[in-house]
C-alpha cells in the first residue's frame, strides 16, 4: 500500500512529511500518526528526505507525536534528516531520544526486527 504521504509495510508505517513542517503540515502528520496508532500500527518511521525545514511549531507538534507513540508503547525512528533539521533536533534534544537513520530502508530494516506487541 503506497501513498505519497505514507507507506504501510506489515506492522510498520513510514510517514513522509512535506517540504516545510509548520503548524498545518505538523498537524497533518499528527493526525496521520494518530490514525495508524488507532489501527494498531505502533512502529512508525518518519522519513524527512523531502523536508527542507521544520519550524519551532512543527517541532512542538513532533514532540507531541513522540509523546503519543510513547504512550502507546510504540517505536518511532527518524530517517533522511537534512543537516539543518538535524541541527534543529539536536538543539531541542530530540537526537538523544529518537534514533536517526541515514535512509528510510535502514530505519525500516531496524524497526521491523523490534517487538512492540502490535495487534496487526
Amino acid at each position, binding site marked *: 500500500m503506497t501513498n505519497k504521504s505514507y507507506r504501510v509495510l506489515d506492522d510498520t508505517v513510514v510517514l513522509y512529511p512535506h517540504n516545510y513542517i*509548520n503548524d498545518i503540515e505538523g498537524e497533518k502528520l499528527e493526525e496521520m500518526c494518530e490514525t495508524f496508532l488507532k489501527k494498531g500500527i505502533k512502529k512508525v518511521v518518519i522519513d524527512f528526505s523531502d523536508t527542507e525545514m521544520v519550524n519551532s511549531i512543527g517541532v*512542538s507538534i513532533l514532540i507531541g507525536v513522540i509523546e503519543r507513540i510513547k504512550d502507546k508503547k510504540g517505536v518511532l525512528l527518524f530517517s533522511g534528516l537534512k543537516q539543518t533539521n538535524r*541541527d534543529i533536533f539536536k538543539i531541542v534534544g530530540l537526537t538523544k531520544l529518537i534514533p536517526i537513520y541515514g535512509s528510510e530502508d535502514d530505519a525500516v530494516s531496524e524497526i521491523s526486527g523490534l517487538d512492540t506487541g502490535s495487534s496487526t
Partner: protein
Amino acid sequence: MRSGFRSARVVRWMVSREGFSAEALKRLDTEGVYSTDAAQLGLLRESLVGKAGLKAARGALQLVPNTEFEVLLPRSAKSELVAARAVEEIGTEMGFDADSIGQIKAALVEACINAFEHSRIKSGKVHLRFVASADRLTIYVQNYGVDFDGAGRKLAAVKAGALPQRRGWGIELMKGLMDEVRFEGLAHGTRIVLVKFLIGKGESEDDE
C-alpha cells in the same frame, strides 16, 4: 612615525594574471622588482589566510562594502519562506556553505514567525534588513509590536531521557543556529538582530 619604520624597506611587486615573458622577468630582476603570476598569488593567499579565509574573502568581494537589502513581509501564510529564499540568495553570494545557509534560513524563519505573532497591529508587516559585510551577515527583523516571545527567558533543563517541553523553542533555535542573537526594544516595536560570521566564532581555517 618614521622611527617606527626604520627597518622597513619599500619594494615593488608586480602581479600578472598571465605571468611574465622571459624578457619581462629579466627586466624585473634587473630592477629588483618582485614578480608573481596568478597561480603563485593564489598559493600565497592560501598560505596566509587558509582555504576557509579565501572562501570567505571570495564571497565578501562580491558584496562588500556593507551591501544592504530590504524586504517587507506582509502577514500571509508562509511569508517567512520568502525571507528564507531571500537570505539563501544573499548567503550564497557571500560564500556561506550550504549548512550555514540552512541554519540562517531556519533562524530567520523563527524570527519572522515570532515577529508576526507579537506584532501589535494584526495586519502589521515585518521589516527585514540584510547587511552583508566582509566577515558577517547581519539580519534585522523588526515588527511594530510588543516584545519577542520570551526574549530573556531560558527553557527549563530537561532530565535525561525525558521529553523536551513542547512550546517555546523559537528563541532557543535562533540562538543555537546563529553566532549572535540580540533583542532590541524600539519606541514603536521590537527588533531582533541575527548575526552569522563567514568563519564561525572560534573556528579557524585549520579546522577544515
